[in-house]
């Protein structure tokens, strides 16, 4: 497909500019010649060509609305359309962030109630909605841990992170000046308690734990883990990316987590948008509330207002209030589902994952054969040994069957990992047909491996040369 620049023609344009109803001004006089740009090289296309260009691009993309998207750790559940309708109400899209509080009571109420609902669902004392994504939330949470120890005058330069952790965990720790120490997993995929006991000292600020972990397994020893960390005065950080596994069943706050971040674009159904925008609210226990980012909403009687009067805050981590419009969608989702709906969502998500696990385990190596939570992790080791078919080949071949591949090569402790998270919004038929496809590919890997290695065979482009893209990066089109 041609680039928008390649279909441009001088003199064309799609969007017009209203004629001025005020006198024109000599721009050079008003601004000064030296501050004016010399050329403006943007596409010049008519509206029909613009629309065709992007519409055709969209048809080369795959979204949840098109098909099954079993990406482990991403919770690609269906994005309800009512959320989209609500989010474009002028009342929600039209306010300037500096509108006075009196004019924004609807927005403030929504955010305040969202914080309360999340606090209840997750067993935390208070939430902030300012972080714009999960990783941003992690950074915020780690910053609050840092501030907590600063206020106590305790030097704790280390942070513990399991070997199964998502890459954002150690990256967030390092961005706050912490040195990360890797914590081993045991043979069941949980925390190695002995290793934790040996690592947990007064130099350690805390442990960043994902529960259930990135293997989809609930940390059975969570009580002991919390005890060990708290016993040496440390804090327990919870990566809530996998919250879809326990809504209405358990609460991180009850399990001993002091601070958690959530991903509204995962658990709470807001669309992924091709990579964003998301939203990463952070919840804290009572002793960390004072460190929350500002401004915070206060309720006086029946009215709400913003306040920055929190002297121990870590400060701001984003301009304005966070990804408000994303919060609107998540709030709508919580109101629509209610307590029972959220709990059912978790139940069906976990049932779906276990169903897939049982159906596929005769065909793919299952490193941890126990009840999983909302996702299951297989290894493509058997297929590699048979005929050198790797997980990446299996993933690409799934594309030919009409599916988005699962998460691959993560977590790092499982070789040739295949992480499948169906979510609750998939029917038994979808799961059955998906399993049939996976089984067919397992057979192909045995009988006709080259076909799998050549995949995908049915897409607009075949496998792309990532090596060339990294050796000779071309990230900006240049007119030749």
């Amino acid at each position: 497909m041609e680039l928008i620049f390649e279909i441009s023609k001088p003199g064309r344009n799609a969007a017009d500019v209203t004629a001025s109803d005020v006198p024109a001004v000599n721009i050079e006089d008003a601004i000064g010649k030296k501050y004016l740009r010399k050329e403006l090289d943007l596409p010049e296309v008519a509206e029909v060509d613009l629309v065709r260009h992007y519409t055709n691009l969209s048809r080369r993309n795959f979204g949840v609305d098109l098909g099954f998207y079993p990406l482990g750790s991403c919770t690609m559940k269906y994005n309800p359309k009512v959320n989209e309708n609500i989010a474009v109400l002028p009342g929600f899209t039209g306010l300037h962030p500096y509108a006075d509080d009196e004019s924004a009571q609807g927005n403030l109420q929504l955010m305040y109630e969202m914080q309360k609902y999340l606090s209840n669902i997750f067993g935390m004392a208070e939430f902030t909605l300012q972080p714009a994504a999960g990783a941003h939330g992690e950074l915020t949470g780690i910053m609050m841990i840092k501030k907590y120890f600063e206020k106590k005058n305790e030097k704790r330069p280390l942070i513990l992170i399991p070997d199964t952790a998502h890459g954002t965990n150690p990256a967030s720790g390092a961005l706050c000046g912490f040195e990360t120490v890797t914590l081993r997993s045991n043979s069941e995929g949980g925390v190695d308690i002995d290793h934790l006991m040996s690592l947990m000292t007064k130099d350690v600020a805390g442990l960043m734990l994902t529960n259930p972990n990135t293997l989809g397994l609930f940390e059975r020893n969570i009580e002991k883990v919390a005890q060990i960390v708290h016993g040496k005065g440390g804090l327990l950080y919870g990566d809530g990316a996998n919250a879809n596994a326990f809504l209405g069943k358990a609460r991180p706050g009850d399990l001993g987590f002091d601070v958690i971040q959530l991903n509204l674009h995962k658990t709470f159904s807001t669309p992924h948008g091709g990579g964003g925008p998301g939203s990463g609210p952070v919840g804290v226990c009572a002793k960390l509330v004072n460190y929350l980012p500002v401004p915070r909403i206060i309720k006086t009687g029946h009215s709400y207002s913003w306040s920055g009067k929190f002297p121990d805050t870590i400060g701001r981590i984003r301009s304005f209030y966070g990804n408000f419009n994303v919060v609107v969608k998540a709030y709508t989702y919580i109101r629509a589902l209610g307590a029972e709906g959220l709990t059912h969502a978790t139940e069906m998500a976990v049932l779906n994952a276990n169903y897939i696990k049982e159906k596929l385990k005769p065909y793919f190596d299952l490193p941890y054969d126990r009840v999983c939570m909302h996702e299951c992790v297989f290894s493509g080791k058997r297929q590699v040994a048979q005929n050198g078919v790797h997980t990446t080949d299996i993933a690409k071949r799934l594309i030919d069957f009409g599916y988005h591949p699962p998460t691959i090569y993560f977590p790092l402790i499982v070789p040739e990992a295949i992480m499948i998270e169906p979510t609750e919004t998939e029917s038994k038929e979808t799961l059955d047909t998906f399993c049939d496809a996976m089984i067919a590919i397992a057979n192909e890997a045995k009988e006709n491996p080259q076909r799998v290695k050549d995949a995908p065979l049915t897409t607009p482009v075949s496998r792309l040369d990532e090596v060339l893209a990294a050796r000779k990066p071309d990230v900006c089109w240049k007119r030749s």
Partner: protein
Amino acid sequence: MSKPNPTDRLYSRDHEWVKDNGDGTAIIGITDHAQEMLTDIVFVELPEIGKKVAKSDPVAVVESVKSVSDVYAPVGGEIIDVNKKLEESPELINQDAFGEGWIVKMRLADAGELKTLLSAADYEQLVKEEKH
């Protein structure tokens, strides 16, 4: 199958090789086995000439599409030359890890450190053990 490990040089446990020039300088690279594990190398971050490194300090970074690896100095010394060809053609390491794909040349701080390294045969043994 990796290329055979030349016997005219010594090896570290981190898959680097050191070729002693006999005049107080040495050339350092990574083994063919290492480049196989990394797969297609897309970028090499070379150190500044004049930089002083101790044994086991990271001295260069080698990137493939899906991974980043530090190259550690098997012995200590001062960097006196780097293989500038790797800037344009990082794939030289994949094609000829023991020859055209050399990474840095250094003036040795302490030739005695060479004694701590492995012979080609010992390195081959190490690789065999790692495979199991």
